[in-house]
């Protein structure tokens, strides 16, 4: 299952970035596929991107909500929010584990041998603040004299945009280099900080700052696909926590906000059948590999 997930992540990354003509056109893809949002965090200004970034799309539509209302076009991101809600209602935060290119990169960088650390638990709530402020409120509320707002998250935070678009576009279109200023260096510093953190901390961006993960996480407890914890079978060995790419303490409860449904705990970590999945009310349990009695494992 773990290898399958790597394959799916790799294929999803390639499909999200399948426009391989960019070295010749020196521009981004402009075909009709760009009207569809990808489920993961993938900048639509990445030269190879074939789809739209859902976060960028929400912000850019909300940042023009006043002028569009004035012109009789009632665009408030229902299309993108509907798509995210559909995915979230089906599988919760699963796209983070299976199809997000930025998530894959974080996991690969974390494989670099080093001492590993845990992030303070309070930081997992920062992503909701970023979601509320930078994705929804600021683009609508802070506007210029013509009523146009900004894409605040893209402009000031998004390290995926810097990595996938900011750096490559400087090589593809050298004229853009003349526009580099403090904003660019600010985003570059954020990217470098997260890249360093990725070595030492499991998925630091997903856990602390990703607004897309924050949106999907709201569906974790109510999605059709969800995880189930059996406290009677759990021996509190904490192997699920040690193996979890998000550092989720599954033994404290299933479907926590940071559970990305990678299924490693379900498939590999738990030897006692304490972790199951439920799809539309049907419980699917793994075969216990180790045993079933709490007394067999020291606390």
């Amino acid at each position: 299952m773990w290898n399958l997930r790597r394959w799916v992540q790799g294929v999803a990354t390639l499909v999200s970035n399948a426009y391989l003509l960019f070295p010749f056109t020196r521009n981004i893809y402009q075909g009709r596929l760009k009207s569809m949002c990808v489920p993961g965090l993938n900048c639509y200004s990445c030269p190879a991107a074939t789809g739209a970034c859902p976060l960028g799309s929400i912000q850019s539509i909300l940042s023009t909500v006043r002028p569009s209302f004035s012109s009789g076009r009632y665009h408030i991101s229902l299309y993108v929010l509907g798509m995210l809600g559909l995915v979230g209602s089906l599988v919760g935060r699963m796209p983070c584990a299976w199809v997000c290119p930025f998530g894959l990169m974080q996991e690969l960088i974390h494989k670099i041998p080093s001492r590993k650390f845990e992030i303070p638990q309070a930081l997992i709530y920062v992503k909701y603040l970023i979601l509320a402020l930078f994705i929804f409120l600021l683009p609508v509320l802070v506007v210029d004299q013509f009523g146009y707002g900004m894409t605040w998250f893209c402009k000031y935070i998004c390290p995926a945009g810097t990595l996938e678009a900011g750096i490559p576009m400087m090589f593809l279109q050298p004229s853009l280099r003349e526009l580099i200023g403090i904003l660019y260096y600010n985003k570059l510093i954020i990217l470098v900080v997260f890249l360093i953190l990725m070595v030492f901390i499991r998925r630091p961006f997903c856990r602390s700052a990703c607004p897309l993960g924050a949106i999907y996480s709201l569906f974790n407890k109510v999605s059709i696909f969800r995880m189930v914890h059996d406290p009677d079978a759990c021996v509190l060995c904490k192997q699920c926590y040690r193996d979890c790419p998000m550092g989720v303490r599954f033994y404290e409860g299933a479907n926590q906000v940071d559970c990305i449904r990678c299924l490693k705990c379900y498939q590999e970590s738990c030897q006692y059948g304490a972790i199951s999945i439920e799809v539309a009310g049907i419980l699917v349990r793994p075969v216990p590999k180790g045993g079933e009695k709490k007394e067999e494992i020291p606390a």
Partner: protein
Amino acid sequence: MPSLTKVGCSFILTGKTDMKNTKSRKTPFLLLLLFLVLLLVGINVGEVSAVWEKAVRICFSCIGIG
């Protein structure tokens, strides 16, 4: 109990659902319906082309220069 063989792993399909659980599981289907309606409304008011128009232009904010 029937067993499923999927991606090289075997599962036990228990089919176990208690009544309380089944009742609470209406929520995801209602949410699914709600967001499907939102998606369709968004498509109907022309947001697909709005997304496309934004996505085919180089986003200077994303790059960090605008």
